């Protein structure tokens, strides 16, 4: 038996055009390279939704504008919008975003992940959990959860 999907018919949107990023020629290997919104969006746009064969970008769970960067303060905030208000997958999506950014960004960055205000029934609880690093660390030691996250992240490494 196939279990019921939380959102059986999500709206799928067109994705933003991809930019070809040229490799900078005069790179200072030891210099601090600033990171911008586009670059962070590129890290997370292809993460697969936990219950649909679509990317977070195609479902408009994240857009380029949902990423805020303050490079001087080494600060990144990602605000995501679950497809339905009672989405039980919200914490998994948030965990995927956090893991992808832990693995992609230099360790000097502080990252906050949150649900867009007013888009989830238990917004405060989801946000608190996603930003408690002890809970995140424990979750990532759970093999089932980790394999679920890795599966969602796979297309983002392509």
């Amino acid at each position, binding site marked *: 038996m196939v279990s019921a999907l939380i959102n059986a018919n999500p709206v799928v949107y067109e994705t933003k055009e991809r930019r070809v990023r040229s490799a900078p020629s005069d790179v200072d290997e030891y210099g601090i390279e600033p990171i911008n919104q586009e670059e962070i969006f590129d890290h997370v746009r292809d993460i697969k939704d936990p219950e649909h064969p679509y990317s977070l970008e195609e479902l408009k769970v994240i857009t380029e504008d949902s990423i805020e960067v303050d490079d001087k303060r080494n600060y990144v905030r990602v605000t995501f919008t679950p497809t339905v208000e009672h989405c039980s997958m919200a914490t998994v999506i948030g965990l995927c975003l956090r893991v992808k950014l832990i693995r992609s960004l230099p360790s000097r960055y502080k990252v906050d992940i949150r649900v867009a205000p007013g888009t989830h029934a238990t917004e405060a609880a989801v946000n608190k959990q996603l930003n408690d690093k*002890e809970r995140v660390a*424990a979750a990532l030691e759970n093999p089932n959860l980790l394999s679920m996250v890795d599966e969602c992240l796979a297309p983002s490494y392509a």
Partner: protein
Amino acid sequence: MEFIDGNLQLKEIQKLEGHTDRVWSLAWNPATGVAGIPAMLASCSGDKTVRIWQQPSSGQSSGSWECKAVLEETHTRTVRSCAWSPSGKLLATGSFDATIGIWEQIGNDFECVATLEGHENEVKSVSWNSSGSLLATCSRDKSVWIWEVLPGNEFECVSVLQGHTQDVKMVQWHPFVDVLFSCSYDNTVKVWAEDGDSDDWHCVQTLGEANNGHSSTVWALSFNSTGDKMATCSDDLTLKIWETDRHAMNEGCAPWRHCCTLAGYHDRTIFSVHWSRDGVIATGAADDAIRLFVENTDGSVDGPLYKMLLKKEKAHNMDVNSVQWNNTETRLLASTSDDATVKIWEFASVP
């Protein structure tokens, strides 16, 4: 102790490298650093190990701290916290694998002499009472357990305390009396005492938002040397000071009240707070900084009760998870971080 502003520094003595993942917590061995015995500390990590570090023996002041032992292949997940018994003979370790390890130094080796099972999931903190007869543990399962230490490295659970509605982040015994304090993801601090007649433990006070308490996860707490003040730190970016009646507390248990809130100093979650015997409160936070606070003694009536002495920016390359003053060398501070290092600091005047 009096501190004159402006001429103090936190000087890095050494960076201890060896852990391969974030270092969560550390504990100074209370039986060391006195009578010519070199100071020793234990650190625990996401790499599932505990490392024992030792100060160079006296007379070798140019020597460096060394890793004396690695306690491994016992915990199967993150080791979240560690605590030495008051005699310094036993080390308790709490792990995300839901167990507590009890380790004893035998010769130069540390052996796991007992494993305590019972918590349903991640154990987050362990604490010995002042006499070493009781061990408290807490977990994401929302419970606090009190274990009695019996001869022959036997531990018997004497009470399971239910009351918190979310993960319990830390347990800490009062420094003199058998009263236990716990703080939680449910934003509260709870005080637990034994009922004299029934030998049962119960919650005697809850310090929550309604009592000027914290508005988000309370990560840690620490007592001053006289046991009548307590500092708590939180995800709400504040440090709070609480106080009680010293004589009443030392005779049993007395109610705690909010004394003051230190807001506006921290930019991200405060994970650790520790009060030195000299009265200096250290905090470690997710903004990579270590800050030191003291009671304000300038005598002005309207002035703040506590003031910041110094802020060490970039104390580590990543979040500071734990800060602990040495019990005897009161100017020696150790810190742990997500950057996988432990650092030893000396709090001193600028020469």
